[in-house]
């Protein structure tokens, strides 16, 4: 981090680190005990760590030849990829473990922190925000600079964004283990963590706009539209869904201002659009950059990319209410949610089709290059799971699938098959370049990872389809006398083989991710500096 900073930036950085440490101290002192005190102590420790790191080199002369203006700023991306992989390990291990507990509940240790209900949000937050979020931020810096042919607007704020964001993730996850949660799905972090994320997000978006303002290309490339939609809409969703009144400024507990049916609607407006704008829009940005670059083919249709972008931004916002079919939510809102969910298939398939058609003429590369294959499979799964999503949103289908493991299977065909695959494709594209090498250190391991990931996803998703449909049918089965055929418990017992298979599928996927992490480590260890004439800002621009 410090190597690329000037003396003045190191001083400002040290100042920010001192502020963070003091803030943590105040927080810990005000709370005195409980989760908030621990979180204050974590901020204090992080701040002090950064003070030492920057303070040690405060007045060192900047390394000779620090010609920043003619290079992209890839240090933050490198750190972001490390955090992506770290959270992948945390989130996926937690996921495989809780999956195992469903098959083998006696394995739960008698400690509160290792109970299923506390580890489950560790899995979801670890994967969505830790793994997915870090990947989005890290790749957005990479893509933004290259599609703008300009260096990031300043050297310090990308670090503030990444370090601040990871503090949010760490606060959230450790909070659940200690028993703090808002209990709003995918927005479980407590009020001060939510506020902190808003600060980080504003810095992130400002940096994005400032860098765009320096671009040497007149047009803003489509990948950036998606990244911007991701940043903007996630901010809107996050703020509205998390409005809460703390019981005390010195404690973690707060109550959401929303209640009952409004809370349910806002929660799933947030929840489904976390899928749309966190897990889809940002990753489409990733796809629109890395797929053409890796395959050497331009995006198949420019018009189709415009259509699908605005279609996704406009339609997705409406669909959250399909999570609430047959509930106490007014019927017309359910119907709107269903209708827009079906219409959403058009822009979704336009994106997926555009991606796949881009590969026309490059199928030989798809066959030979596992990295490109990751991206191809991601586009295929994106198409499949958006079709499944529209299908599940239809009211009668939803009456069978809702509350069952079919939903879990659907989510994972999206997250494993689409989101994780495109992340791995992007990582395998970036990491060799970061290391100044032609390829990953262990090309064979990329192949292994690919097949483990594909097989693991298929095993997982097929097991959950079977589980969900079985559950749904058992719950609604009547015998000849008009009585329910099965007790709830019988439907639980019927799940055992599928839960076992799911844990195995998840473990295979995790195995592939471990290979990826080791491979990245081996590759980055042998980093060389290499200057590519084409991979640099177009002009060394003067400051704005």
């Amino acid at each position, binding site marked *: 981090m410090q190597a690329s900073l000037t003396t003045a930036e190191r001083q400002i950085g040290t100042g920010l680190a001192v502020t963070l440490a003091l803030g943590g101290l105040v927080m810990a002192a005000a709370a005195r005990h409980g989760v908030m005190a621990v979180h204050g102590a974590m901020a204090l420790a992080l701040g002090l760590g950064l003070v030492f790191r920057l303070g040690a080199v405060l007045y060192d002369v900047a390394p000779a030849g620090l010609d920043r203006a003619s290079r992209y700023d890839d240090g933050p991306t490198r750190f972001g990829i490390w955090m992506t992989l770290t959270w992948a390990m945390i989130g996926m291990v937690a996921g495989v473990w809780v999956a195992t*507990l*469903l*098959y083998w*509940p006696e394995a739960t240790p*008698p*400690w509160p922190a290792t*109970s*299923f*209900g*506390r580890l*489950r*949000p560790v899995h979801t937050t670890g994967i969505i925000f830790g793994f997915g979020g870090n990947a989005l931020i890290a790749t957005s810096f990479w893509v933004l600079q290259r599609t703008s042919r300009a260096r990031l607007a300043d050297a310090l704020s990308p670090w503030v964004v990444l370090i601040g964001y990871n503090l949010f993730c760490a606060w959230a996850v450790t909070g659940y283990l200690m028993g703090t949660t808002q*209990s709003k*799905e995918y927005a479980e972090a407590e009020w001060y963590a939510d506020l902190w994320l808003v600060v980080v997000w504003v810095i992130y978006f400002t940096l994005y*706009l400032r860098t765009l303002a320096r671009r040497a290309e*007149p*047009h*803003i490339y489509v990948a950036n*539209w998606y990244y*911007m*939609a991701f940043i*903007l*809409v996630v901010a*809107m969703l996050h703020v509205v869904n998390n409005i809460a009144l703390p*019981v*005390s400024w010195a404690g973690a*507990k707060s*109550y*959401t201002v929303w*209640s009952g*049916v*409004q*809370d349910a609607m806002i929660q799933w407006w947030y929840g489904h659009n976390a899928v749309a704008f966190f897990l889809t829009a940002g990753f489409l940005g990733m796809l629109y950059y890395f797929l053409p670059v890796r395959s050497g083919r331009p995006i198949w249709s420019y018009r189709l990319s415009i259509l699908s972008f*605005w279609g996704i*931004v406009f339609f*997705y*916002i*409406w*669909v959250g*209410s399909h*999570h609430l*079919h*047959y*509930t*106490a939510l*007014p019927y017309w*809102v359910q119907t709107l949610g269903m209708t827009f969910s079906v219409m959403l298939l058009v822009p979704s398939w336009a994106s997926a089709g555009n991606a796949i058609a881009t590969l026309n003429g490059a199928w030989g590369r798809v066959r030979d290059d596992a990295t490109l294959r990751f991206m191809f499979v991601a586009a295929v799964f994106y198409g499949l799971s958006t079709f499944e999503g529209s299908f599940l949103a239809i009211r009668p289908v939803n*009456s069978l699938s809702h509350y*069952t*493991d079919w*939903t*879990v299977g659907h989510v994972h065909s999206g997250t494993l098959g689409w989101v994780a695959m495109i992340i791995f494709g992007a990582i395998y594209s970036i990491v060799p370049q970061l290391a100044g090498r032609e390829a990953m250190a262990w090309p064979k391991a990329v192949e292994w990872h690919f097949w483990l990931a594909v097989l693991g996803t298929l095993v997982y998703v097929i097991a959950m389809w079977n589980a969900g449909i079985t559950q749904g049918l058992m*719950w*609604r089965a009547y015998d000849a006398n008009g009585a*329910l055929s099965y007790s*709830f*418990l019988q439907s*639980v*017992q019927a*799940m055992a083989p599928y839960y076992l298979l799911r844990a195995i599928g998840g473990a295979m996927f995790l195995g592939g991710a471990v290979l990826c992490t080791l491979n990245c480590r081996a590759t980055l260890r042998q980093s060389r500096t290499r200057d590519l004439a084409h991979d640099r800002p177009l002009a060394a621009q003067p400051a704005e």
Partner: protein
Amino acid sequence: MILRLHYNLEKLSMGLVGAIILAASIGGLVEIAPLFTIDETIEIPADLRPLTPLELAGREIYMREGCYACHSQMVRSLADEIDRYGPYSLASESAYDHPMLWGSKRTGPDLARLGEKYSDAWQVAHLTDPRAVVPASIMPAYPWLMQPLDTSGLSGALATLARLGVPYDAAMIQGAEADALAQSRPDSAAAEAFRDRHGDRPALRAFDGDPSRLTEMDAVVAYLQSLGTQTAAAHLAQEGTAP
């Protein structure tokens, strides 16, 4: 024409920002804003009571342990759900729930109509070791619920909820800690004061079987026994399904 317009829009970062915000706001505004006016016309049942301090403490523990990840509290208006669980849920039933706990997954059964379906002793045994009561259960055990309940934040919690519109009066807020204790001690002098403040309907029992100590188990069982009993509206709305 439109392509031409878009061609120019792509050169303006603030133009894109504005267009994204506009496009992404409409759906939410149309679907969410009317719910707040509907709320004024939805009748809050006259008999809807807010949770007692002990039940609220139990709800906090329910959230803390992530129970909502496997149990819904929302009976859908489908025949098999009404036959299995009871009357379908009404919007007004969760009007005081900050946040709602409708849930999204049934790894275990729905709990919206759980109150008074099983005895306190069954609930305690089941939470302590589910497989001792239901051998095929895959629910985790919660032996640590036998630890003492921390009641110190309850007044603050009630006060905060009152500010958000839950009908807790000043006496309820002031007496929250005492009432939490009293609700698990039917024979104590404080029990009468509890009845004065919270009425006759909430259960007043030694939920964990031992009136001499106030545990998290007391709170969780009190909460579980309150589910679906805060109002009879759902039963009345669906004649013939009376409990």
